[in-house]
């Protein structure tokens, strides 16, 4: 019998705000324990929560980018359960009136190769709601320690429909969410730092069946590729169980990244009784049409839309756009450069994606210990991550100078080859390309009498090539041009050289 997996995700994303969801104290990753708290975070007797306006706006922003409906009224509820990392022993969350309903996440599956676009589809969303994060527990031999720095950080929970079927889709989904949300500046979505976390629900059923199988929840995946591997493992495990006739039980399993297996964390004997009820300390929020329009007005372009536009409007190849369009910094840099020189976006894209990124990556690797194992995580369809967060705007090369270089090459003043040399100098010194060219005397040699003497030298030196050319082998002329370029130190204008050479041979 053939089986298929049905997969739904609950993704938690920390929202970048100055202060916490319900308290006016900040949160930063990696600070000493319990240094980012206040009486509200500790749930001391008498404290009260107050909603963070900005966290609400940012969640709505994500909702609008993902095509969700934003209901007019939203409210917060208490989810009651005891755990040492939860100071109130209830979490302020949203039960039946979340901020965002419906919507979907466009994903791209990996294509046949890096220059081919993969298949696109939309994974349906159930809802997005806004809640608070809990503190951090660390376990030791004899006790557990609690740090409440993270407690109360705004957290949006993005709940998908059971609408995925493979590890690849899960991987693509997480990458797409990360790209969309980080593009909007709402979170950095760094899974290693816990800024983005996912729980995966998987069930397996005979292909064609309408009924869902036993739902098993996975936790503890700290990267999209981890999640993909975990899902693939779990699908195999569940199908294997079914084939052997072993019963599957509803349970929560943990991904062990070292052993690369999933393990039982707990079985759900009795369902949680969270006793949700509307929080009497918080007032509901009414979202007006005008407010929604104002949020809509500041929405950034969704990455896949931008990618399609770059391909159609600028004629860029898929491979370049797949690098660019998942990184807001590259896009901004590119668009500024194109604004300065709109005639050749392709050349500009090439300079940015290849030359500038290569130098920045090399500089980073030279400057610090290469991060182990972290690269390429989000390199799904296209390879976006290796160039992420490189600080294009912090480099010495401005987008206007990149544009200037492209224009100079297009104008024939220097060759593409010399262009590479000029770029390296721009990167090292920050000087404008025109200055470098004149300082170093790199302008193309278009002095016809000098070029003619170089050509005559070359003809004398290689009679064989001359004969072959005369016999009709057009390519043979390249063997004659090489020495000319060498003699001119690479500055000979290639078009002129070709013309002079042909004239001389005839």
């Amino acid at each position, binding site marked *: 019998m053939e089986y298929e997996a049905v997969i739904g995700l609950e993704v938690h994303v920390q929202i970048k705000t100055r202060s916490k969801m319900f308290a006016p104290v900040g949160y930063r990753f990696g600070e000493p324990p319990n240094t980012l708290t206040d009486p509200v975070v500790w749930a001391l007797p008498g404290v009260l929560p107050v909603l963070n306006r900005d966290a609400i706006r940012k969640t709505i922003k994500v909702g609008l980018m993902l095509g969700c409906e934003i209901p007019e009224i939203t409210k917060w509820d208490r989810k009651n359960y005891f755990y040492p990392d939860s100071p109130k022993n209830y979490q302020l969350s949203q039960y039946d009136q979340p901020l965002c309903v419906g919507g979907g996440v466009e994903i791209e599956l990996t294509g046949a190769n890096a220059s081919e676009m993969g298949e696109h589809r939309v994974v349906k969303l159930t809802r997005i709601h806004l809640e608070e994060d809990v503190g951090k527990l660390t376990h030791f031999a004899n006790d557990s320690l609690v740090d409440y720095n993270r407690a109360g950080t705004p957290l949006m929970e993005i709940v998908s429909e059971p609408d995925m079927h493979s590890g690849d889709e899960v991987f693509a989904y997480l990458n797409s969410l990360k790209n969309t949300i980080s593009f909007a500046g709402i979170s950095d979505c760094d899974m290693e730092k816990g800024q983005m976390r996912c729980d995966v629900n998987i069930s397996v059923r005979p292909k064609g069946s309408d009924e869902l199988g036993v739902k098993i929840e996975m936790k503890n995946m700290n990267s999209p590729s981890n999640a993909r591997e975990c899902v693939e493992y779990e699908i195999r495990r569940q199908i294997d169980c079914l084939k052997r006739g072993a019963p599957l039980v509803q349970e929560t399993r943990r991904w062990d990244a070292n052993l690369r297996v999933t393990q039982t964390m707990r079985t759900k004997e009795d369902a*949680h009784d969270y006793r949700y009820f509307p929080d009497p300390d918080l007032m509901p929020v009414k979202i007006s049409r005008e407010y929604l329009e104002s949020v809509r007005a500041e929405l950034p372009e969704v990455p896949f839309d931008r990618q399609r536009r770059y391909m159609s409007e600028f004629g860029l190849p898929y491979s370049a756009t797949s690098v660019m369009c998942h990184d807001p910094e590259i896009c901004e840099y590119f668009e500024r450069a194109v604004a300065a020189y709109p005639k050749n976006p392709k050349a500009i894209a090439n300079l940015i994606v290849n030359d500038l990124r290569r130098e920045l990556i090399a500089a980073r690797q030279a400057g610090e210990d290469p991060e182990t194992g972290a690269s390429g995580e989000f390199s799904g369809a296209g390879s976006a991550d290796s160039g992420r967060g490189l600080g294009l705007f912090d480099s010495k090369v401005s987008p206007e100078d990149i544009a200037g270089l492209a224009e100079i090459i297009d104008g024939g003043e220097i060759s593409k080859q010399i262009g590479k040399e000029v770029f390296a100098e721009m990167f090292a010194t920050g000087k404008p390309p025109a200055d470098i060219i004149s300082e170093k005397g790199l302008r193309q040699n278009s002095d016809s009498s000098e070029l003619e003497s170089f050509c005559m030298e070359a003809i004398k030196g290689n009679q064989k090539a001359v004969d072959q050319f005369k016999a009709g082998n057009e390519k043979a002329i390249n063997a004659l041009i090489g020495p000319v370029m060498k003699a001119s130190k690479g500055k000979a204008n290639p078009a002129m050289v070709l013309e002079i050479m042909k004239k001389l041979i005839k």
Partner: protein
Amino acid sequence: MEKAKIDIEYVAKLARIELTEDEKATYSRQLGQILGYFERLSKIDVSGVEPSAHARAVYNVMRDDVEEPAMPVSEALMNAPKARDNQISVPKVVDDA
């Protein structure tokens, strides 16, 4: 509402309160009486009535996203029953869900 009978063990577990057998018996009886008194609620027609979660309906009470200074760790921990390394120490957490 059925004749109210409270599953005292289940509810005490939800509330994380250990009860003696005597307490269980006493509370069951008393809460049964109280819930019996509450039955008058079930006799009233509330169809079409909006629930009141608050004493009055006010919307959109929010604050601007401004960071204020944090509480010093020493103050945060001054009432802690047990702490080390500037963190709260609790008996080892055994995951029970």
